[in-house]
């Protein structure tokens, strides 16, 4: 075996992981915390907007709200891409050792699915806009290319997909929040506080 492969440049957190001297981070970076809450608020806002706007009668306000919904969606997508890069290059703090194996598996599965949905939902919205024949023009300035040509069947199917993915997201977020509160009030561990801004980190 070639010994050189161990000195090849690899992700810093991996080196940290391999080193017996590693210092396991005890909290998230300020960037990770900011991205978590920024995206949480933006998701809540645009999810509510989507629920509210879709059965409004046609009006200039409806067209404006649809545009804003799409612009926020594109923005969230860009933040999520940055967040994923950050997540892959910065190791998060470990889950508390008190957590049961099934709970660790569930947490990892839910976190992974949340990341998947945060990527898939904006893309499904973009595809849906293309298929419905309404191009996304970011902030009315930057036209995004249409990924599909206009097609009613595809448009209807993608609308159903967009709704289904959002419903899944809503359910998982409720579970995510419930779990965080359970950790705080029942388990009394640092799962919630380490993601809170303005809380003094040890």
């Amino acid at each position, binding site marked *: 075996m070639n010994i050189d492969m161990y000195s090849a440049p690899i992700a810093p957190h991996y080196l940290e992981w391999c080193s017996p001297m590693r210092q396991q981070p005890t909290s998230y970076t300020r960037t990770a915390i900011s991205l978590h809450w920024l995206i949480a608020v933006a998701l809540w806002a645009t999810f509510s907007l989507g629920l509210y706007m879709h059965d409004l009668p046609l009006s*200039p306000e409806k067209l404006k709200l*649809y545009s804003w919904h799409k612009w926020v969606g594109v923005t969230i997508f860009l933040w999520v891409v940055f967040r994923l890069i950050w997540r892959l290059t910065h190791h998060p703090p470990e889950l508390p050792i008190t957590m049961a194996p099934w709970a660790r598996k569930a947490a990892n599965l839910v976190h992974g699915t949340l990341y998947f949905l945060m990527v898939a939902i904006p893309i499904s919205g973009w595809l849906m806009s293309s298929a419905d*024949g309404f191009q996304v023009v970011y902030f009315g300035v930057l036209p995004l290319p249409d990924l599909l040509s206009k097609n009613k069947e595809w448009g209807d199917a993608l609308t159903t997909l967009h709704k289904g993915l959002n419903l899944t997201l809503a359910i998982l977020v409720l579970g995510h929040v419930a779990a965080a509160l359970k950790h705080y009030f029942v388990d009394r561990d640092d799962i919630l506080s380490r993601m809170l801004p303005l809380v003094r980190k040890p």
Partner: protein
Amino acid sequence: MRMTSNTLSVFAGLMLMSLSAQATEFTTLDAGQSSIGFAFKQMNVPAEGKFKQLTGSIDFDPDKPAQAKAEINIALASVDAGSDEANGALADTLWFDTKTYPTARFVTTSLAPVGNHQFNVTGAMTIKGQTHRIESIATFHQEDRIGVLEGKFTLQRADFAIGTGMWADFGTVANEVQIKFRLVVHAATRQK
């Protein structure tokens, strides 16, 4: 090389055909093959639509454009703007008000050749009881007994009170609407 009587007759035939082609007068509008489309922007997003029904009359001899006449009637209720929601709204009083004004009419006032198969078409467009002058450069192509006149022009929807009330603001739906027309015409039966 010696010309046979056969080749000569082919020549003569071709010359006659080209002569008759030059003298072709187009008098029938093929409504089924013709199309009227439009393009506009809402929230700066390009959108397109078309009208599925039109009727009209035409009298057009490419060699005598000064005498050309055309009248196109568009059934406004046949609009397809891409969604049932939009089509329903367009029939409403704020937009076309199709119950009171079912038809948009375009009548030519002059047709002048500008070279290269192109004509400067002017005419009167009437929508919702408002008439405005329209000018367009149209291209005419002819293949045997069928001709195609196509072109585009821009109109301001506010000139015709299309999109009033809450829609009057151009910030959501732009004032400029581009109209694209493609009229398929058939030549008159030759009289001898």
